């Protein structure tokens, strides 16, 4: 269990690092939106791994909230790009 958790968290962390690179480098606003959306998805996945490890229900609420937040943020910035251009 511990080995699995550490491995899964390591892979998710490397994924988050790589998408942070894309978030910083860009070059366009749309790239940054995609990277931010992926960061939130990875946060949801990480909370899922913690729920798998500890069996505590708190992390599941966090997962529901981040899943909704990801969609709200992405669609809002997408509307902004439609109006302004990337």
């Amino acid at each position, binding site marked *: 269990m511990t080995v699995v958790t550490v491995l899964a968290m390591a*892979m998710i962390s490397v994924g*988050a690092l790589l998408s942070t690179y894309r978030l910083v480098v860009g070059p*366009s606003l749309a790239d940054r939106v995609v990277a931010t959306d992926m960061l939130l*998805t990875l946060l949801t*996945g990480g909370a899922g791994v913690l729920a*798998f490890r500890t069996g505590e229900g708190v992390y*599941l609420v966090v*997962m529901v909230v981040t899943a909704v937040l990801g969609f709200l943020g992405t669609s809002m910035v997408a509307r902004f790009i439609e109006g302004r251009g990337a």
Partner: protein
Amino acid sequence: MSVGEVVASVLVLLGAALSLLAGIGLVHLPDVFGRMHAATKPATLGLVLICVGAAVSTGDVPDVAKLALVVALQFLTAPVGAHMVGRAAYHAGGLLSPGTVLDELAAEREGGGVER
């Protein structure tokens, strides 16, 4: 370890591996649309794998219901969000990679007939 724990561990590891692959794709691919293609894999399949793994691991009915809610939300919202970003990025223009082979909307866009 019981059989359920082994199954849950494999599922969680597969989901995490998809996250890693998506990170690599996000850095490596040349334009927004390719990056989006890479980034939407862990948003649906990876998260479903992790959620099923956690559900097998806990087996508690209220917890499984919450995980099912997360999966349902993600399946409803991830394609819509990706579609909105892709549409906005395409209309903004200039974001296609130079290596793009086929742009089926190009004629329509140059004719000015694109409806928003």
